[in-house]
């Protein structure tokens, strides 16, 4: 949902006071390691914890901004962020309510893109040795269903998972079979840049109930800039032009 800007007073340069949020700390080399309730951490100068408790941290300093951003302190301009922290805590401890629910299968490390923000140590698209083996896939499916969770989500990632489409088909088939045997609900998601999606793939995802998660980094000029070797038509444009995509788009596509 679109959201209008906060009123000008919400951007007041200096809060009159700040309040503590729960955190733990320890000395770490010549610094202090601060960890909040959601597990986020900050390495800060010695004396930071005492400064927080005593209220002596300079609220105009870069340190205070870090402390506020990492949920160690809040002030009258940041109360909505408490809900953000609560959500992070819920996410962190979600596994306690029924076991691990999200299982990510990296079916290949290959990718034809080189997005600078990507965390994956990608391999060139020609190296088949970086694909998941069937033995690993079988064991991973078994391990996933060993979770006490009654509803599990299998997310197919990479690299670019569509480069290993045959492995995706193998895993989807095997996981569905095991879900029936173990009487569990299975959600299937493939996270892809869609650059190499074909009609055959998209029809398969539609027919098998595999949700597609993709991302656009904004308008074409920005989207293409984040990865030098891709162009808009090779990602969203390519998929939108696809005849299967036209009908698929409205059904299960989620844009991040």
């Amino acid at each position, binding site marked *: *949902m*679109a959201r*209008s800007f*906060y009123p000008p007073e919400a951007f007041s340069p200096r809060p009159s006071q700040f309040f503590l949020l729960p955190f733990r700390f320890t000395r770490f080399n010549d610094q202090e390691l601060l960890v909040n309730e959601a597990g986020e951490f900050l390495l800060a100068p010695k004396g930071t914890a005492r400064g927080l408790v005593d209220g002596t941290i300079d609220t105009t300093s870069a340190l205070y901004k870090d402390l506020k951003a990492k949920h160690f302190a809040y002030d009258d301009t940041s109360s909505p962020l408490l809900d953000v*922290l609560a959500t992070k805590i819920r996410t962190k401890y979600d596994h306690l309510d029924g076991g691990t629910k999200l299982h990510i299968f990296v079916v290949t490390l290959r990718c034809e893109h080189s997005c600078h923000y990507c965390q994956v140590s990608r391999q060139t698209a020609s190296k088949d040795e970086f694909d998941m083996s069937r033995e690993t896939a079988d064991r991973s499916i078994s391990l996933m269903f060993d979770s006490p969770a009654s509803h599990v989500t299998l997310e197919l990632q990479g690299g670019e998972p569509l480069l290993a489409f045959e492995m995706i088909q193998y895993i989807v088939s095997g996981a569905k079979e095991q879900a029936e045997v173990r009487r569990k609900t299975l959600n299937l998601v493939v996270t892809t840049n869609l650059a190499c999606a074909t009609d055959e793939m998209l029809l398969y995802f539609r027919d098998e109930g595999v949700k597609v998660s993709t991302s656009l980094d904004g308008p074409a000029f920005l989207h293409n800039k984040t990865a030098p070797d891709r162009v808009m038509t090779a990602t969203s444009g390519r998929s939108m032009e696809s005849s299967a995509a036209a009908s698929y788009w409205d059904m299960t596509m989620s844009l991040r």
Partner: protein
Amino acid sequence: MEQQRESSLPHKTTASLRISNEVVSVDALLKTCYWFSRDFFCDVQKDGPGFSLVSLKRKDSSPIQMEELRDTFMNHALDFALRERVTAKTADIRDILLAKAFSESGVLEDRPEGVFGDPIEEAKSDGMFKILGNS
């Protein structure tokens, strides 16, 4: 605040620290001793009103030298005292955060300040944001 009474043993393998419980609580001292128990045999006794006497006997395997024992112990003890202050100061907000995090219905979620909506969409009489928000 505290005094150190080193023993008269030749190798100085023991030390005693007299600590005001106004500065470091007994609980904080016990926690400090727990972390020191790998390297020292520890004992905590009352030593008059408002004071505790911590006795430490160095184990052979300890990497902490007796010369640095007082400072090292007090640093850790003051850290535990500070943690108690953090816990006391944040107990209420922690309860609220956990309640928000694990409430099933979402009733504890605050509505963010400001106006929701897209001005163009809101201008339409049948706009989606008219229906969903700001009522």
